[in-house]
C-alpha cells in the first residue's frame, strides 16, 4: 500500500513536470525566445513524460527489471535525457560558431577586396 502511494506520488510529480515543460516551451516560443523547432522538441519530451506518468506501473516495472528503485529509474532517465540534449546543443552551438566564423571571414574578405581595388593594388 505504501509502495503504491509512492508510485502514485511519483506519477503525479512526473505528470506535473511534463505539463510544466510543455507550458514553458509554448510560452518561450510565443515570446520568440526559442524557435519552434526547439519548442517542439521540448514539448515532445514533456508529452512523453505525461504519457509515462499515465502508465502508472511502467516505472516500478522498469525498476524491477533493472534492479533499481523507481526513484532511481526516474533519476537515471532524467539524467540520460538531459545529457543527450546537452550533447545535441553542443553540436548545434559548434555549428553556429563555424557559421559565424565563415560569415565574419567572408565579410572581411569583401572589405579587403574593396580596399585593394580602391588602392589599385589588386594582383
Amino acid at each position, binding site marked *: 500500500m505504501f509502495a503504491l502511494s509512492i508510485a502514485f506520488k511519483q506519477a503525479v510529480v512526473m505528470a506535473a513536470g511534463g505539463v510544466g515543460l510543455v507550458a514553458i516551451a509554448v510560452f518561450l516560443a510565443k515570446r520568440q525566445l526559442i524557435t519552434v523547432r526547439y519548442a517542439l522538441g521540448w514539448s515532445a519530451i514533456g508529452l512523453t513524460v505525461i504519457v509515462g506518468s499515465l502508465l502508472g506501473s511502467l516505472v516500478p516495472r522498469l525498476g524491477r527489471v533493472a534492479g533499481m528503485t523507481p526513484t532511481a529509474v526516474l533519476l537515471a532517465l532524467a539524467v540520460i535525457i538531459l545529457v543527450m540534449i546537452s550533447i545535441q546543443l553542443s553540436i548545434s552551438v559548434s555549428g553556429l560558431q563555424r557559421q559565424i566564423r565563415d560569415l565574419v571571414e567572408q565579410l572581411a574578405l569583401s572589405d579587403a577586396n574593396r580596399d585593394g581595388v580602391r588602392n589599385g*593594388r589588386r594582383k
Partner: protein
Amino acid sequence: MKGRRDTLVVVPAYNEEPSVADVVSAIRKQGWDVLVIDDGSHDGTSRAARGAGAVVATHATNLGVGGALRTGFKYAVTHGYSRVVQCDADGQHRSELIDYLVSQAVNSNADLVIGSRFLADVEGSMIVAPHRRMAMRWLSWVLLRKTGVRVHDTTSGFKCVSEPLLSEFAESFPAHFLGDTFESCFVAARNGYLVIEVPVVMDERAHGFTSASSSKSVQYIVRSVAAAAFGLTFRIRPKSSTHETAAQ
C-alpha cells in the same frame, strides 16, 4: 629583394591603434604588400592601418589570431600570392627581417619558416616570462617526440608560410586559442611539410600588454598536449597528396 611580388605580409591586429601605422609604414617601406586583419578592434586600428597604406580586412567580431590568419591566408591564395609572412602589429617583429625569413624559405624550400627569439644570440632581444618559457620547453619536447622536428620557439608569431601549405592553411587553419602556434607546427610537420626554425631578434611590445598569463600557459599546454596525444588537431592534406593534385 626576394619574392616581393609573390609575398603578402599579413598583420593580425586587435586594438593596436597606437602601433599599427608605424608597423605598416615600415613594412611598406621595404616594398612588401601588406594586409592588416582588424580582428574586431574597438579602437581606430582599421583607420590607422588604412591611413598608413595597408589593405584592411575588418572582422565584425573578434575571432582570435588563428581566425585572423585564416582570413589572411584566404586573401593571399585568392589573389595569387604563393607566400605569406605573419607579422605582429605591436612592433615586436622587425620589418627588415621579413626579407631574411623569405630568403630562408626560398633557399631551403621550407613550407614553414619560424622566426625564433631563442636561437638569436643577440643583446636586446625580448625577454620571455619564465612560465611562458617553461610552457614552450614542454611543447618543444612534445613536438620533437611526436614529429622529430625541433622548434624552440613554439609560440612565435613571426613566420613564413609557403605553397602548398598556404592553401591547406587557408582551408582549415584553427581559430581556437593559440591553435595558430604549436598546433600549426605540429600539423605541418606531421603531414610531411618542411618546418625549419631560424634565429631572429624580437623587440618588446611598443604599446599595450601581452595576452599571455600563467593560467593561459597552463591551459595552452593541456590543450596542445591533449590535441597532439588524441589526434584532436585540425586536418590538412599530406604534402605528398598536394603534389599529386598539382601533377594532375
